[in-house]
């Protein structure tokens, strides 16, 4: 019986970071895929500003048929973020992993959507979560139930909760791709906005 070998690529090709409006591009390092079967790409996205009429941020997953050089990159798949205005709000009480699934927040956020606990002071402490219920309560005390326990503490002082966040997974065949890289474009028009992004990666490497 054979089994598959997979690698969670560490560090992330694009670490969690704030990408300000008008940033031409954030490029990952180049990743050798010369013997790999396929990859799963994980894009975490959130607005970091309450900007109306925003332009999408674009993820471009690019592949090359060459072993070196930057003259042969071709988009394997491009993806555009949503443009909806974030309904950002402050936490009414600190959110902790110990009181895991319910938070109180000023924003009236729809169930079955992602939010970002945005920590501007230390971006890496930010955290995505999935909202499964909104019990109301009115601002600034909307009670949201989360799909699972938080990983980190998020304090009233340090945190803004943004709505219209998103997480996507893309499966890409690498049977004819030598190298890949990931690019985020945030200067696609006159109305781009500040966003928070992370790109993670798992590769299917071999059969043993």
């Amino acid at each position, binding site marked *: 019986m054979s089994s598959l070998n997979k690698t969670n690529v560490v560090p992330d090709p694009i670490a969690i970071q704030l990408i300000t409006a008008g940033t*031409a591009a954030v490029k990952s390092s180049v990743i050798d895929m010369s013997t790999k079967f396929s990859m799963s790409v994980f894009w975490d996205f959130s607005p970091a500003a309450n900007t109306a009429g925003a332009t999408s941020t674009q993820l471009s997953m690019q592949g090359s*048929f*060459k072993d070196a050089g930057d003259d042969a990159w*071709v988009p394997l798949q491009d993806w555009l973020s949503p443009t909806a205005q974030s309904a950002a709000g402050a936490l009414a009480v600190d959110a902790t992993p110990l009181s895991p699934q319910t938070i109180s927040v000023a924003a009236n956020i729809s169930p079955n959507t992602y939010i970002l606990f945005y920590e501007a002071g230390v971006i890496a402490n930010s955290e995505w979560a999935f909202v499964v219920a909104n019990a109301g309560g009115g601002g600034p005390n909307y009670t949201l139930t989360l799909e699972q326990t938080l990983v980190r503490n998020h304090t009233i002082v340090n945190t803004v909760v943004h709505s219209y966040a998103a997480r996507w997974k893309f499966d890409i*065949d690498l049977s004819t791709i030598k190298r890949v890289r990931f690019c985020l474009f945030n200067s696609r028009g006159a109305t781009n906005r500040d966003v928070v992004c992370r790109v993670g990666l798992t590769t299917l490497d071999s059969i043993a």
Partner: protein
Amino acid sequence: MAYNKALIIPDPVPFQYLATNTVIDSGDIDVSGAFSAGLFISWFVKDITYRHYGGMIHVFAKTSQDAPYVLVQLTGTGLKSRTGSFPVPALAGDTTANLTGVGPTVAPMWYVVDDADPAKREMVQVCKYHLGSGDPQTFLDPLQFPHAGATPLWQGMRHFLRINCYSYKTMKIVYDNRRWQTIGGADVTVPVFVEIAMILNSALT
């Protein structure tokens, strides 16, 4: 076991400038031992007039000397190349330039730098939105070659196609630069730049 991926040399359709009404045929490509083929297509229209429809890339499977079977067809629609030029010489390694002649455009966007020396023609991806002619452009990757002032650039496209080869032994690729038409259906002539590179996945090692 892991994959073995081999670049086909030379390219089935090498990087070249094609006059209108030209047809390029790769000839037969042996894929009898291949799992899959990856086609890397670069395509730039050297014309700034709006074209409704035209040009076509055909990928065929062949089982005999009879007419081949169509696997994939890719055509241009709604194409209108934007064009610009370097007002001053650009240097190899430059990542920005002030192009003239390029009006408001979205980003990212592919261009070919149409250097008078064919060996210095290169493709760049402009990745910063710009409002008007003369505004700074930012390239995703540094320029590979220096370019003289007034060197033109033409807007284009890049595509990737992955094609299974499990059940046939011969493939061929045809780029047909005919059939360009205006939105009213009138035949027109359009020269292009085109390149199709190919990788075959042919072994588990």
